[in-house]
């Protein structure tokens, strides 16, 4: 993650980054208000703290009559996918959550101060890369994973373990990280930044825009200008040979919930070690003017012994989303590789000098 930030986008992309985050930072005042209520809203119904069904809220609808999910959203969060070791409860109190947020924000900010971490290239604060500068989608959960109930990924199957070992061996075979562009993490290469599904918050710019048209729900992801165009007309999945990073999403409405089932991933996505057989089922439910409840199930018997589930809120932010032209401004890769070649040359020269002076 850290490397990604370093290697990607030093020039034009940085400008774009700065701009977007500035834009996003202008959270509508109204959206700020119900902050305290939000975490509770994401809690499952059977939880002890009752859901605030205080005033009768009705879901807005698009002109064609389906629930209206449109607008700008974020799932910005410090909540980890898996429950940290040592934490045993499912939910923090609000005070505890604020503590966690504060600690994380401080850790991020440290990166700003030269000397505190090994390689500070960006000023996180200046470029708005601190998550705490954007609106957080508060979540009282101690982990995104809700099932298994321990908040951890299920055990990996023998097949999954073998695949992980094979992948590691293959990576090793390819040489060191900066030997060739293909060895550099995929995000730094502007190929893929885990836009999902499932849609986990990225390190920065966790911004989304949802636009609906008859028969479609479209989600624009700021990072890498990814777009998920989800048909809701009941058509079947693409043929098995059609593989892609974002997979092939097909949606339908169950009551007021948008259910999206995605298959046809390629074997390079490898979300948490998954295979190309992964199936992700997502559920988007608008729970208030300000929030969407996002639940997902990951099903991949060739990787995990059982399916697992996660949940997080999306909350409103101000728009617009600006172009993230990552590849186009990716000076980082060329500079990093050129640097590596230079260092090798220097090392070789020094070695030669040593030999000759002996």
């Amino acid at each position: 993650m850290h490397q990604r930030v370093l290697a990607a986008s030093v020039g034009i992309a940085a400008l774009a980054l700065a701009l977007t985050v500035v834009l996003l930072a202008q959270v509508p005042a109204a959206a700020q208000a119900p902050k305290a209520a939000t975490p509770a809203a994401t809690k499952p119904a059977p939880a002890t703290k009752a859901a605030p069904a205080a005033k009768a809220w009705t879901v807005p609808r698009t002109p064609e009559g389906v629930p209206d999910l449109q607008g700008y959203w974020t799932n910005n969060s410090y909540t980890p996918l898996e429950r940290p070791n040592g934490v045993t409860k499912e939910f923090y109190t609000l005070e505890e959550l604020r503590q966690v947020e504060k600690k994380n924000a401080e850790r991020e900010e440290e990166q700003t101060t030269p000397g505190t971490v090994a390689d500070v290239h960006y000023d996180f604060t200046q470029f708005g890369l601190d998550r705490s500068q954007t609106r957080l989608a508060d979540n009282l959960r101690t982990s995104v994973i809700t099932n298994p109930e321990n908040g951890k990924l299920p055990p990996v199957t023998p097949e999954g373990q073998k695949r992980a070992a094979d992948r590691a061996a293959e990576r090793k075979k390819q040489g060191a990280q900066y030997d060739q562009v293909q060895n550099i993490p995929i995000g730094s290469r502007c190929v893929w930044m885990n836009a999902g599904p499932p849609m986990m918050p990225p390190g920065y710019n966790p911004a989304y825009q949802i636009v609906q048209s008859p028969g479609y729900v479209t989600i624009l992801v700021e990072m890498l200008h990814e777009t998920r165009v989800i048909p809701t007309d009941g058509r079947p999945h693409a043929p098995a040979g059609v593989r892609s990073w974002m997979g092939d999403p097909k949606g339908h409405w169950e009551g007021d919930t948008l259910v999206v089932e995605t298959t046809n991933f390629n074997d390079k996505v490898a979300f948490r070690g998954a295979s190309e057989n992964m199936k992700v089922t997502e559920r988007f439910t608008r729970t208030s003017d300000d929030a969407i409840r996002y639940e997902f199930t990951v099903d991949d018997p060739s990787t995990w012994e059982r399916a697992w589930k996660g949940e997080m809120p999306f909350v409103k932010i101000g728009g617009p989303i600006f172009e993230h032209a990552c590849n186009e401004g990716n000076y980082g890769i060329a500079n990093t590789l050129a640097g590596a070649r230079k260092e090798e040359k220097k090392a070789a020269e020094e070695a030669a000098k040593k030999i000759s002076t002996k």
Partner: protein
Amino acid sequence: MVTSLVTSGLLLAVTTVAGQAPAYRAPRTPDGKPNFNGIWQAMNTANWDVEPHAAGPSLVRELGAIAAVPGGLGIVEGGEIPYRPEALAKKKENQANRLKLDPEIKCYLPGVPRAMYMPSPFQIIQGQKHIMIVHEFAGAVRTIYMENHTEAPADSWMGWSNGHWEGESLVIDTKGFNDLSWFDRAGNFHSDELHVVERIRARSPETLSYEATIEDPKVFTRPWKISMPLYRRVEPNAQLMEFRCVEFVEDLIYGHLRKQPSK
């Protein structure tokens, strides 16, 4: 002279006919706007060259006929782009060095209007406040702001698009471009003063007519216009697919920086 008379006569005739023909009225979205939702694609050779051009060989011998240039009648009205002399020289240089310079080869965002006539589909997603145009090539996206029009916050590849309806037409005004995208593989180009006004209207249930006026005082002596039909992809299973080409161009861009040089 004779030719130009004939041509203008013909244009007149066409205009008259078009003027008399009852204009097609597009079906409406639930909120009463012409409904352009769908997957669309141009079917012409404009991405090779927006100007009229003859068939020609590929710059890459190894590809034989497979990547040769098909001839095309062009989509520029009147045939030629009104370059300033120094800009025309740059266009020719671009064309000669296309393999090094064409942003398409490097999987860079295609810009406007090129995104509209790339040989791959795009989808129009028509929301009420925003109309999205999602392109298969490089996953490029345009957001057309239908309300709260603002200036571009900064320059970008795809520009900043404000749209409005004029009867049956969607009019899109796009500025805020950087000077890095091209119009085609022939090296036709623009500066960061590019201003594109597009007019899109339905001409039948399965076709749109697309026009764009292109203005860029740094590069052209006057505004000029392109026009072409767009075709709805009518396969029952038509869908926009992923063409994440960055991965396909990395050896091209960074191959020389490999530890073990690629053969």
